[in-house]
């Protein structure tokens, strides 16, 4: 049922508070509500932090309890947590949300145009397939096509959106 546990070395994401948005490793448990926490590579000093503001991630580091910051840092860099984190879907969603909030009016227009074009392409293909299916009756080969054709268009759209966002940055 539960897959992520509070343990020494568990990397946690801080969801609110002064260090919101940063990653931190649990060094020791103080009592039922607090943990000693340290984020040498994410700019969080060693401190006590309540569990409530932490959200556990999938990453676990190996160091003994109450290890000093240097050891935590070594373990962090050995596991390359920063890069692994950036590659997770969680981090990507956060980044996408931030980008969306920063969109200017011009960006919104460009995204709208990209979305519109993409939907048009998809609709066009769908209509084609529907027409073919209705004309010649159900055939198993044709049901494979929609999946193939949607993927390149998704790549197109995300490419365009990213391009639009990149040009504005």
């Amino acid at each position: 049922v539960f897959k992520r546990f509070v343990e020494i070395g568990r990397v946690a994401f801080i969801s609110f508070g002064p260090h919101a948005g940063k990653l931190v490793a649990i060094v020791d448990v103080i009592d039922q509500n607090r943990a000693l926490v340290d984020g040498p590579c994410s700019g969080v000093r060693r401190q006590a932090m309540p569990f409530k503001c932490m959200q556990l991630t999938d990453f676990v580091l190996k160091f003994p309890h109450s290890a000093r910051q240097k050891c935590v840092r070594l373990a962090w860099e050995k596991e390359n947590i920063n890069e692994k984190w950036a590659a997770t879907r969680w981090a990507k969603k956060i980044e996408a949300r931030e980008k969306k909030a920063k969109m200017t009016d011009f960006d919104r227009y460009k995204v709208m145009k990209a979305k519109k074009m993409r939907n048009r392409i998809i609709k066009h293909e769908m209509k084609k397939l529907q027409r073919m299916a209705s004309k010649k009756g159900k055939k198993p080969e044709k049901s494979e096509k929609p999946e193939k054709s949607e993927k390149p268009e998704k790549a197109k759209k995300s490419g365009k959106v990213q391009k639009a966002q990149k040009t504005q940055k």
Partner: protein
Amino acid sequence: AAGEKKPGEKAAGEKKPGKKKTSEKKPAEQKASQKEVGEKKKKIKRHHASRNPVLARGIGRYSRSAMYARKALYKRKYTAPETKIEKKKKEKPRATITKPVGGDKNGGSRVVKIRKMPRYYPTEDVPRKLLSHGKKPFCEHKRRLRASITPGTVLILLTGRHRGKRVVFLKQLATGLLLVTGPLVINRVPLRRAHQKFVIATSTKVDISGVKIPKHLTDAYFKKKRLRKPKHQEGEIFDTEKEKYEITEQRKSDQKAVDSQILAQIKKVPQLRGYLRSTFCLSNGVYPHKLVF
């Protein structure tokens, strides 16, 4: 005269007593005396300290008349050079003017006063107004411009017949209104004035640094014209006044001149033309206070 002018410079004069005596005739030493005069002029700035010692704040030891004597003001009486006064004595403003008068046997002209006596004196005097401070007329008001609005910014008009349209900002006019253009071919907004308060400034900018805006585009150019000449004819007053606005040729030519320059810059940015053609609108889930413009 020399003695009157610089009584305080006697100290400086004493430094070069020899030169003063011999400076009259010899040309070589005249130059020296000129130099000395020049030096004296520079040194005039050495003013004497106050000759009126202070007893308490605001109270001096000597009275006005005593000070007059102590400062030797009886010796220092300056009058302005008189020649120009003599000339200007003759330039009094004209009091009367002779005007031609028509009609038979009227003696062709009359002498008329230019500044006439008031024709009415009110029975009650107008009470003297209290002094006010800092109440300036509109033409002297300070014009401000939001930092987010710079030449070339794309603005969203919020009011007026062009509400929702995205428009390019050109410059701020003397009354504080913003001069703005569509450009006309893109969204049918001509060269027009817009109010700063009723406009959203986006962060999108067009490079207008090379664009020259004609100097005759001022507030007077854009002001609405109204004909009001009743001429005592009460039949058709409401019809003959300007009901339909006609676009003058000058407006068309100015529009072309400005727009051609701007369009060239707009074409350089991809998708900007389509952006300016579109209108701004809110829909479900879109909150202006959360939008970044």
